[in-house]
């Protein structure tokens, strides 16, 4: 690209007096040794720079990164496993707690039921006792009432017999009253 005309005497067979190329510069034989020489030097320098410094360094960086990634993935899997374990433990604890709550509830219900049954039974017993007492009292009252009626009836019968002018035969009256009351 640098094509400014070269002034003065020009000493190349491949360049004309204005500094322009004659034919293809690629085919100019007198430039070839120069290019080959500098190319070989360049390639040797690049080869040593790459093979001694750059490539081992990049290889080590890549290996280090690969190692880091592998470690991180392993650590992540370990953490994931721990998280899964923790979740399982949590689920198990939850299930246990639920079962325990159910058991406690059941037990409480059973206790309450037992207490209730006990209380009911006691109450029934008391009621039965009261009923029996009451019935006894009623029977007594009834019995005493009957006895009173008998006494009143005998007295009344005696009084009536006396009013009618008879002599009250105690035995006859009581027999008659008894018969009457049975009848």
């Amino acid at each position, binding site marked *: 690209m640098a094509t400014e005309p070269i002034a003065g005497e020009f000493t190349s067979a491949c360049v004309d007096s204005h500094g322009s190329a004659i034919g293809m*510069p690629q085919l100019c034989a007198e430039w070839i040794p120069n290019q080959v020489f500098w190319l070989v030097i360049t390639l040797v*320098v690049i080869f040593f*720079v790459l093979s001694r410094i750059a490539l081992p360094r990049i290889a080590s960086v890549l290996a280090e990164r690969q190692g880091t990634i592998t470690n991180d993935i392993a650590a992540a899997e370990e953490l994931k496993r721990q998280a899964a374990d923790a979740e399982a433990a949590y689920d198990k604890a939850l299930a246990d707690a639920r079962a325990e709550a159910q058991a406690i509830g059941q037990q409480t219900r059973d206790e309450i039921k037992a207490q209730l049954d006990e209380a009911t039974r006691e109450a029934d017993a008391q009621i039965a006792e009261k009923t029996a007492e009451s019935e006894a009292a009623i029977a007594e009252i009834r019995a005493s009432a009957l006895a009173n009626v008998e006494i009143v009836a005998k007295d009344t019968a005696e009084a009536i017999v006396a009013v009618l002018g008879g002599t009250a035969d105690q035995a006859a009256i009581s027999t008659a009253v008894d018969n009457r009351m049975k009848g």
Partner: protein
Amino acid sequence: MATEATHGAEMAGHGAENAAETGGLVFHPMDQFIVKPLFGDGAVGMFTITNVTLWMLIAILAIVALMVLGTSRRAVIPSRSQSVAELAYGFIYKMVEDVTGKDGLVYFPYIMTLFMFIVIANFLGLIPMSFTTTSHFAVTVVLALCVFIGVTVLGFVKNGASFLSLFWVSSAPLALRPVLAIIEIISYFVRPVSHSIRLAGNVMAGHAVLKVFAGFAAVAAISPLTIVAITAIYGLEVLVAFIQAYVFTILTCVYLKDALHPHH
């Protein structure tokens, strides 16, 4: 590129006879490939410091900057330059591994040297006013001959005389094998020619076309169109710069594979 228009005009005034012939349009598309001394106007000898020296030195510096300075921090999380260097490393490493197999990885530094030099020289050549070292057959022929001679010697060292089975296609019918052997031998010796001319030819043609369009930019009526065309071709050349380096490298790998495993 932009200075080419003024340069063309200047040349038109300077070279009166050229200008008279072409009516103001002066094309010197090949002048960009002239090798000339950096200091003085003497002849170009073998050890003369020329623009070739300058641009190869710049290529070395660019490679050092990218591959050594760019990776100097050895970061696990890479910086931009480090990831480009790692990308180049991984790209060529995988290519060598895929094409030649595990036993070809010994030669990875050599192939990396070729690739880095070609790709950096190609891209440096795309800088306006620069000199493109890879546009010269002298350069690419040396590169191709290094590969050709290296691979041939390696083939015989690794396989002995059985390296010649590369030319004896044992899967073909027996009658055809001598014919195929001749074809294979010819194609083997044509390798360095095509290998070198492909690279220099592509690079040279692209740069020359850019220059031709730049010459047209001197005409005001078509200069906008010319600039659009230059831009488009420049984009194409960026692509070519990489693809030709890639092609050169992968062909090197293929030839290396033939040397390591000559049996079809």
